[in-house]
């Protein structure tokens, strides 16, 4: 028995504990059905899951149309080199694109088809973005360097965004070293202060969302995005304290894209991060370190004050200004759209920065569950298949508990003809039957929040705060729509406050609006 049992043994529950121990011990060692887990099949499924997580749900490239006339050199075999094409104006001053590699180097990238040679396939849009950023951050070219070991002998190749070598590319990373006089730093150990700047381009920001669990720790990430996953991950196994990111400050630009900025201190040093997320999900990210950025494998100490650049060459405001440059645009083709028929919620209906779950394809429903954790469930099985979509995002603090990653799943349940109203009544009954009123576990104070008439034929909300779950039901005839909000961790999710009720009512209205709108042609409404 664990030590916890000992704790309890010294309390009034001693007899109870002994009884429970006997009860469970009595169930050990009994015969049970044979089962052999197929490790090979599990591995295949694991591989597939890994691919999905890395590459999103995939799909064909939609293509990105180049809108700028460019000077291009045809290299044969369908490859065009845009290195001699002029770059953007502004701080870059229209210099040729190839010059960006004086100031930055290609670090790598990732793609659904495995490792690619990114030194030979830098998309033109990424080079344009990079030039625009450098134009802001080091307009005179006095500080930033490409390879810290000296000028690269082989220059990366800038190709068209739809070059075959870029097919299914999900991300690309480049970086610069910052020194006070623009000279190449000497070999390690670093004695002169130097900084580091990373430029990252992602096909879909959603691929970077979600907590990273390791050693029971949720890894803090800037603006909730694993932009510097490698370094931050390395901290988990090191001695350094995990970063405390400042609250992410978002700004929306006129084109609808959003810029988020944040920073974190490491001793006397600072990491500054800014991301620009486009409507397509594409993201351009800047990470600036005012000290030599550590390798993930050697994150053991805080930066030495002697090697921190003072004043810091980076700031949130400076990064925001750089990323706001109108010449900066998406690099990769967007992922295919979800919810094509529009019958389910748009992510924005739930809240800012919500997205369709990039790792979940369309789901199906077939079982309408009615349970409250206290009584046997009353699920209805064997329904005609319906569809469902999963979303993810952050619910803000305040009305819904602490801000934290949350998922939502909207599904349609196609009940037998004529049973819709009765089933909805039953669902209400079970939704209000929660027990365990005050405990942190169980379905606690299951609360039914009635919604105004006019949202579908009938609608209500089931609040299950201690199960970290809120369910929104909307009925249209014999079809019930249900959206379930869930937090992956055990954090209360309670929307019974006035603000919470307003928000959840808004979600229900949107569910009804989308469904009614998508159904209108078929029903003749």
């Amino acid at each position, binding site marked *: 028995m664990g030590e*916890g049992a000992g704790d309890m043994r010294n309390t009034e529950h001693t007899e109870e504990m002994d009884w429970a121990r006997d*009860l469970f*011990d009595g169930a050990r060692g009994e015969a049970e059905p044979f089962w052999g887990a197929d490790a090979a099949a*599990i591995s295949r499924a*694991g591989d597939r899951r890994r691919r999905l997580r890395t590459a999103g749900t995939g799909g064909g490239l939609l293509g990105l149309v180049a809108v700028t006339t460019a000077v291009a050199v045809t290299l044969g075999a369908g490859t065009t080199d845009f290195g001699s094409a002029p770059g953007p104006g502004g701080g870059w001053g229209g210099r040729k694109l190839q010059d960006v590699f004086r100031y930055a180097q290609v*670090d790598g990238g990732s793609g659904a088809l495995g490792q690619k040679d990114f030194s030979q396939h830098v998309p033109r849009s990424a080079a344009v973005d990079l030039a625009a950023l450098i134009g802001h951050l080091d307009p005179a070219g006095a500080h930033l360097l490409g390879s810290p070991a000296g000028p690269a002998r082989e220059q990366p190749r800038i190709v068209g965004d739809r070059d075959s070598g870029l097919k299914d590319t999900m991300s690309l990373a480049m970086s610069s070293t910052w020194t006070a006089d623009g000279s190449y730093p000497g070999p390690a150990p670093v004695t002169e202060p130097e900084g580091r700047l990373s430029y990252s381009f992602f096909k879909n920001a959603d691929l970077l969302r979600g907590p990273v669990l390791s050693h029971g720790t949720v890894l803090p990430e800037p603006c909730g995005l694993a932009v510097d*996953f490698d370094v931050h991950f390395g901290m988990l196994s090191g001695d350094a304290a995990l970063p405390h990111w400042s609250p992410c400050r978002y700004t929306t630009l006129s084109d609808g894209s959003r810029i988020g900025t944040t920073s974190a201190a490491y001793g006397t040093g600072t990491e500054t991060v800014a991301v620009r997320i486009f409507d397509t999900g594409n993201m351009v990210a800047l990470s600036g370190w005012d000290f030599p950025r550590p390798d993930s494998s050697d994150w053991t100490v805080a930066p030495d004050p002697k090697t921190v650049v003072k004043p810091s060459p980076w700031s949130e405001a400076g990064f925001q200004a750089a990323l706001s440059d109108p010449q900066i645009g998406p690099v990769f083709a967007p992922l295919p759209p979800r919810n094509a028929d529009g019958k389910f919620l748009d992510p924005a209906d739930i809240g800012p920065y919500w997205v369709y779950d990039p790792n979940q394809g369309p789901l199906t429903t077939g079982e309408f569950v009615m349970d409250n954790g206290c009584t046997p469930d009353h*699920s209805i099985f064997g329904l005609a298949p319906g569809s469902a979509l999963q979303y993810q995002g952050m619910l803000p603090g305040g009305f819904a508990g602490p801000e934290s990653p949350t998922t939502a799943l909207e599904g349609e349940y196609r009940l037998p003809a004529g049973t819709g109203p009765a089933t909805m009544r039953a669902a209400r009954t079970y939704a209000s039957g929660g027990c365990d009123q005050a405990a942190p576990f169980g379905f606690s104070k299951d609360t039914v929040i009635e919604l105004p008439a006019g949202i579908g034929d009938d609608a209500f909300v089931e609040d299950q705060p201690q199960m970290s779950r809120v369910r929104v039901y909307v009925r249209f005839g014999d079809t019930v729509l249900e959206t379930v909000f869930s937090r992956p961790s055990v954090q209360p999710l309670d929307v019974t406050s006035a603000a919470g009720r307003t928000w959840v009512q808004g979600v229900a209205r949107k569910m009804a609006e989308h469904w009614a709108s998508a159904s209108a042609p078929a029903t003749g409404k």
Partner: protein
Amino acid sequence: MRLLEERRLLGERRPDDREFAELVAARAPALRRTAHLMCGDWHQAEDLVQVAFIKLHAAWGRVRRREDLDAYLRRTLLRACIDEKRRARWRREQLAAADDLPDPVEPGAVPDADALSNRDALVKALRTLPPGQRAVLVLRFWEDQSVEETARLLGCTTGTVKSQTARGLTALRAVFASPAHAADPARYTTTEGKA
């Protein structure tokens, strides 16, 4: 090695097939018993164990230390068990549609129905508890986890574990003291006949 390349490697690192197969063989039976106590169904227990291993396989690069593997598996398994039946069902449907998971082996004939009575009785009683309480009791008394480890696995405080243990045991005793138990005491008898 640079940012994204490292991220790719960390995120995509996969286990050695032989090592992983050994891990599955070693851990799956115990995890299945735990899942069975949680969900009361051998088929579903097998599904949930497979899902836990699939997640571990996919997260191999992030669950690096050997001692973390058990915790990760337990945590994943319990969360799947606690989660509503619907999600497990969706998960099954998805996996079945997209992957080549093996069909669960049909449970064979039960060798001795009487020999399963204690576990059956326990499973039935546990099913009357809220999932959270059930998880606490299973971790404490089946998995022999400490209060602290139980709290860590469930992501709650030690106070919560203690209070839920007390509540769960009270509820469990009530089940075993019920008229149904009185009508068929042999079926509910524990090893020391304390029911």
